[in-house]
């Protein structure tokens, strides 16, 4: 019988506060992957779009494979890890499931961490599949595995944080956030030396490019694949880490500030 002689809930002690919340963040991450990421439209978008991008650039702009491989990998990381993150919080606000999460013993920081982890893991998974396909066709040669691994890990984390940062307006309408997301993400593609090397961009855009994390992702990928790059690998890594910290802190600050406006 429930409560008496039945199964008693064993709850962990005070000492494990951080670890307990981290475990809860992992549960939120698992929930996000099940509900939002492992859906056919998201999967199709994630796996098909890099190949269309590749074909579009090859036939449309006569760009070489050499130049395009890091670009396609960079764009894939960028669009995949930040694809669903922006709509999770508005969608959960609308469905009132955010209210459920907030009433549970987990802080908002860890709820957001769970959402970020989901985008990160999904992005890493998709990037690895694309990487393996490229390697399978022998069109990709790795020059520096260390930089490549860190580029994939840190860039996915960075853009996943960006996705959560984009969802700060306290709306329950995901389409509003998707518009904002496109407004932020597409200009970044054009100012980040994706279509042409940063040093060939107009002066003003070259300055803007320094403030885009995508610039450093693509440059780091070029470095790891032994292609021409501008910044040293370690410098790009450092800048991406700084962006992760900034995006994460801003996301927490603004989501906390806006939380009560969501209910």
């Amino acid at each position, binding site marked *: 019988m*429930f*409560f*008496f002689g*039945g*199964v*008693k*809930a*064993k*709850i*962990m002690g*005070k000492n*494990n*506060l951080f670890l*307990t*919340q981290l*475990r*809860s963040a992992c*549960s*939120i991450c*698992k*929930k996000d992957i*099940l*509900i939002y990421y492992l859906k056919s439209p998201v999967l199709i978008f994630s796996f098909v779009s890099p190949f269309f991008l590749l074909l579009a650039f090859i036939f449309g702009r006569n760009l070489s494979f050499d130049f395009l491989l890091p670009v396609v990998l960079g764009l894939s990381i960028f669009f995949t890890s930040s694809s669903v993150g922006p709509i999770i919080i508005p969608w959960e606000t609308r*469905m*009132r*499931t955010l*209210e*459920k*999460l*907030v*009433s*549970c*013993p*987990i*802080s908002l920081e860890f709820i957001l961490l769970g959402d970020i982890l989901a985008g990160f893991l999904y992005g890493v998974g998709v990037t690895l599949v694309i990487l393996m396909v490229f390697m399978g066709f022998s069109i990709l040669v790795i020059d520096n595995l260390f930089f490549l691994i860190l580029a994939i890990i840190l860039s996915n984390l960075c853009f996943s944080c960006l996705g959560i940062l984009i969802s700060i307006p306290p709306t329950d309408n995901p389409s509003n956030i998707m518009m904002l997301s496109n407004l932020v993400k597409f200009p970044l593609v054009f100012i980040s030396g994706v279509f042409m090397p940063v040093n060939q961009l107009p002066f003003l855009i070259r300055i803007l490019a320094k403030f885009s994390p995508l610039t450093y992702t693509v440059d780091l990928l070029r470095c790891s694949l032994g292609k021409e790059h501008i910044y040293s690998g370690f410098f790009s890594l450092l800048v991406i880490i700084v962006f992760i910290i900034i995006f994460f802190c801003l996301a927490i600050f603004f989501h906390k500030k806006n*939380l*009560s406006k969501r*209910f």
Partner: protein
Amino acid sequence: MGDIAIQVSNLTKLYGKTLAVDRINFEVKKGEIFGFLGPNGAGKTTTQRILTGIIKANSGTVSIMGLNIETESFYAKRQIGVVPEIANVYIDLSAWNNLMLIGSLYGLSKKNRIAKAEELLKLFNLYERKDEKTKTFSKGMKQRLLLAMALMSEPKVLFLDEPTSGLDVQSCRLIREKILEFNRHDMSIFLTTHNITEADQMCNRVAIVNHGKIAVIDTPEKLKKEFQFMQVIEVLFNKEIQNKRELEKMRGISKIQKVNDKFKIYTDDTDCLIREIINFSHREKLKIISLNTLAPNLEEVFLKIVEEHKSG
């Protein structure tokens, strides 16, 4: 402090310039079912959201089992289970996965989560459909699942916001029975409801709120006793009354209503009114078919208090 489950002091919440909750104070004892009643927009749901740590108050304090909901949020939230007004289960997850998620958010071990989920799904007659996505569930099933989710961590205090609203009779009865059963085993219940009859039947004490303020807190029985002046006499005559004005002239009447073929007469002097009705029936050559005296029900008390509060 030892026997207090919820302690609320000077709680105030502003939305812009609108005062949603206005310096309210109350406490809920351990093992008590406390009803929180009020008309729409009275501040009930806002209060419940503050008590459950979903939103922050502008001022005042809330403690759950002696733990401050703002400063000791993590530990205070572990003492509570929440069933909100609108079903907020994850519709793309199965009932099982919903329970697993909540269990892990409350820090239950995997073995415990599985055992607890099985127990609760069986208790609420959902076990057969545990692997179905909850988007296929009826409202009653979702509500039962919500209750199961709220009970995963064996909370000391259970918050329920309109738990039976819009449900079929069977689901209502099951949920009420379970709530009473949990309460019998020392779980404190904070019940926010519009359903006055439900509150009357289930609650040990009720608070009636209006415009963000608590108008009154007492047991349903005491409230009804205090409003004895609202006694009602229901009378049915053998034929239609020709001279209704004569009826209205009787002494001791505060209000008169015709409900179907009966007259519902409100009075503060039952004895006087019964005599008047008998005299009236003699005068008008009427036969009294039935005559009942009714004590005020909680709904009438509620309406009276809300009215008084509005005008006062």
